[in-house]
Every structure is written in structure tokens, then in C-alpha cells.
């Protein structure tokens, strides 16, 4: 009805009202429905001019590949990008929301967004949902105070690192980083190391696969290399297609049933208006 211009505190966060009921149902033997987690390899490194982010492109629903070429590197601001692992819907929604908030903040301050702003917005949102928003993120960008790389966990904790990996393929990718990373890499060295790490995830982890996406962020310039590497090209057995010639398949028995018309056309009056 009447709306005044006071900013009332928003009713956010998770509603825990049904937890008692859920516990009661579990005790009676009912199973909680499980949600789908997408396997992923996402990585980020800091190099001499900025930050490089990388991700594989496979989205899985249990044992099935749902999307062979999905985009896991999300836009947050012109100078900040975020890779997402975990539940795909959660990562999409949370990065879109924070991207929107960053844009509004940008207009209000008149300045370029900072990575720590994005980080704080993400972690406070995830914390208020107590880990139920299943988004594990690698956030990277370059702002006025330099290049930054962070990891954000679903419960809301964050790390600040020179190189980071998340997702089911994170161990495979981290193995590559731990042996080959050094400070002050050049752009080409950084991309090569990153692609090696993602490929390690693609080939050694079932939840990751298909192609490599790379995003290079430097001061004043961002390059998004979609499908930078395609190590899993589709190979077709026969380019002519398959041809089934009559007589090549053995016929065991034949039964022919003529179709009888069951509908009877009847003369009826037109529908009354």
C-alpha cells in the first residue's frame, strides 16, 4: 500500500523453519533428495602483468555429460572474472547477482570495481546461506591496487593465493602447479602452465573434460579466450554416414496388421454461439 522511502532491512538468508520436520522425516526413514554436483577443474594464477583464469568445459549430471562445452568463467566486472565449480545454477546465480551489485557500486563511487569488493560480496552471501549455496569459486582480477587471486568456498571462507585450483579436478591441476609454478611468469609461460594444469584435470578426472577456456586479465585490458585449446575433438568413423542396405539384416518373421479406421464421421450441427 503506502511505500515510504526508508530502506528496511531485507529479509534474507535461509529459512530454517522446516529443519525440525526434515529431521523427523529422516528418523522415519525418508531419504533427502540429493542435488547434482558438476565435476570441474578451475584454476587461476598470478603472473607478472596480472591474473590468468582457466577452466574446463564439461558439465555433468552424475555419470552423464550434460554440456560438452559450457562456460565456467563468468563475467563480474570489466577487470574481474570468476570461475565457478559446484552446482552450476548456484555459481551462475551468485556471480550474476554480485556482478549486478558491483555495477551499481561502480556508478555510486565513480571508480573501477575492486576485487576485494567482489570477494566480500560473495563471501557474505555464501556465509548467510550456511553452505547451502554450493558454489566454489576462483575469483581473479586486476584493480588499482594490483592483481588479486582468491578462492571462495561454499561456506564463505576465502583464501588469497598466487595460484589456485578448485573442483573435482583440483588435485590433478594442483599437482602441475606445485611442481612448475614460479613467481614472475610471462604471459605465454603462464598460459602454457595453466593449459597444462587444466588438461591434467581433463584427462585424469572423470568430472572434467572437453576444452580449455582461458581468461587473461591485465591492467586496463582483458582477453577472454573461449576454447583456447580443443584437446578432445569429435572424430567421426565414416564421413559418408551409415548406409543400411536392404537384405543385410536377416528377417526372422513377418506379421502384417491392416489398420482399420475407427473414427466415424457423423453429421452434427454447428456449435451454438
Amino acid at each position: 500500500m503506502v511505500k515510504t522511502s526508508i530502506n528496511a532491512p531485507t529479509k534474507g538468508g535461509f529459512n530454517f523453519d522446516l529443519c525440525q520436520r526434515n529431521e523427523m522425516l529422516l528418523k522415519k526413514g525418508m531419504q533427502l533428495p540429493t542435488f547434482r554436483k558438476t565435476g570441474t577443474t578451475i584454476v587461476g594464477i598470478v603472473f607478472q602483468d596480472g591474473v590468468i583464469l582457466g577452466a574446463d568445459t564439461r558439465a555433468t549430471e552424475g555419470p552423464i555429460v550434460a554440456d560438452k562445452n559450457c562456460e565456467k568463467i563468468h563475467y563480474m566486472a570489466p577487470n574481474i572474472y570468476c570461475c565457478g565449480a559446484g552446482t552450476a545454477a548456484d555459481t551462475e546465480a551468485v556471480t550474476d547477482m554480485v556482478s549486478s551489485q558491483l555495477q551499481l557500486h561502480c556508478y555510486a563511487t565513480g571508480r573501477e570495481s575492486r576485487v576485494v569488493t567482489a570477494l566480500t560480496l560473495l563471501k557474505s552471501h555464501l556465509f548467510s546461506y550456511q553452505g547451502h549455496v554450493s558454489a566454489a569459486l576462483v575469483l581473479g582480477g586486476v584493480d588499482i591496487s594490483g592483481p588479486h587471486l582468491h578462492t571462495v568456498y561454499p561456506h564463505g571462507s576465502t583464501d588469497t593465493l598466487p595460484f589456485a585450483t578448485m573442483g573435482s579436478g583440483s588435485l590433478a591441476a594442483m599437482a602441475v602447479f606445485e611442481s612448475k609454478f614460479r613467481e614472475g611468469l610471462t604471459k605465454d609461460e603462464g598460459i602454457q602452465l595453466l593449459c597444462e594444469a587444466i588438461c591434467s584435470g581433463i584427462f585424469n578426472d572423470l568430472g572434467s573434460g572437453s576444452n580449455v577456456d582461458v581468461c587473461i586479465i591485465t591492467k586496463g585490458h582483458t582477453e577472454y579466450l573461449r576454447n583456447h585449446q580443443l584437446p578432445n575433438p569429435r572424430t567421426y568413423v565414416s564421413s559418408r554416414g551409415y548406409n543400411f542396405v536392404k537384405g543385410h539384416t536377416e528377417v526372422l518373421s513377418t506379421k502384417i496388421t491392416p489398420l482399420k479406421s475407427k473414427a466415424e464421421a457423423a453429421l452434427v450441427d454447428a456449435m451454438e454461439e
Partner: protein
Amino acid sequence: MGDSQYSFSLTTFSPSGKLVQIEHALMAVGSGQTSLGIKAANGVVIATEKKLPSILVDETSVQKIQLMTTNIGVVYSGMGPDSRVLVRKSRKQAQQYYRLYKEPIPVTQLVRETAAVMQEFTQSGGVRPFGVSLLVAGYDDNGPQLFQVDPSGSYFSWKASAMGKNVSNAKTFLEKRYTDDMELDDAVHTAILTLKEGYFL
């Protein structure tokens, strides 16, 4: 004014069918700094004179023309603080539109929503109408567009318009100078000339 006994309550119509508070709000607009907008063939220009109360004011801290989205800007005539509130609300609405439809908000939609906010404040209890008129300039798929939004919440699309002090002279000047196939550079030049006309008033 003869309707003065009806001007205490905003939500009451006067016998002549006017909402007197809105008339007063338009007076507030009419005594504000001149601002104008011109729609050219390949863009829109909005301009205003940034008149500061004293030379001691830090001019970089005053922003009369502001962005609502990357392709929509706004200038106002009237009370500056009121325009700030509207710009903030419009920016948020533009972001909400983008979140919902994944499309940058078209100029007409944003104008409509801003006008709806202004109208809300003419029909609620305990609030007063906004003391600003806005000139919204934007460029989207439908080309360059220029809209004026009044304190009552009504909006008009213009080829060229002026608001604030000296509006009649400015509009006459624009009527003489405006052509449909004007280029953006010509439009900028005309805008500056129009503002100069009223400079010494």
C-alpha cells in the same frame, strides 16, 4: 492563489481538478538551472550549465549529468538531492531488468519505471512529489531517444527540449535551429549556443 485552502494536503484534488502540490513542484523545476536536450540523427546530447554558488566550491564534486546505464544518461532541472534519489532507483531498476531478462534495459522501459516512481510519490501518504524534471537521453536498438519526465510522473518524447529557467526563450531558439537530419556535432554546438542565450539572465 484561489486554491490555497487545498494546497495543504497533497492527496486532495482542488475544485478546479488540479493537484496543487504538483503545480508547486513544477514551479520548483521552473526556477532551477536551465538544462536541455537535442536528438540528432546519430545520437542524443544533453547539456546544462553547472552554476556553483561560489568559487570556493570544488567543481569536480558536483555532477549534474549522470549515467543510469552505459547507454542512458540523465540531466535534471530543479532540486539536486531529489534527482540523486531518482538516479539511484533507476540504476537499480536497470540492473534488476538485466538480471531478469539478460537484456540491457530499453530507454522507454527505464523512463516508464522512473515515471512510475515519481507518480507513486504523488499518491502516497506522508511524502511529497519530486522537485525535479528529468531529461533522459539514451541510445538503444530503436536509435537515439530523448524523454522528459515531470514531477507528476508524465513523460514525453522530444526531438529537442529545454527545462528550468529561461525555458521559453530556449525552446524558441531550439525550434528555429532544429533540423531532423542534424549530426551529433551540430547538436552539441546548438546546445551550447542555446545555453549561452540565457547565460546572463
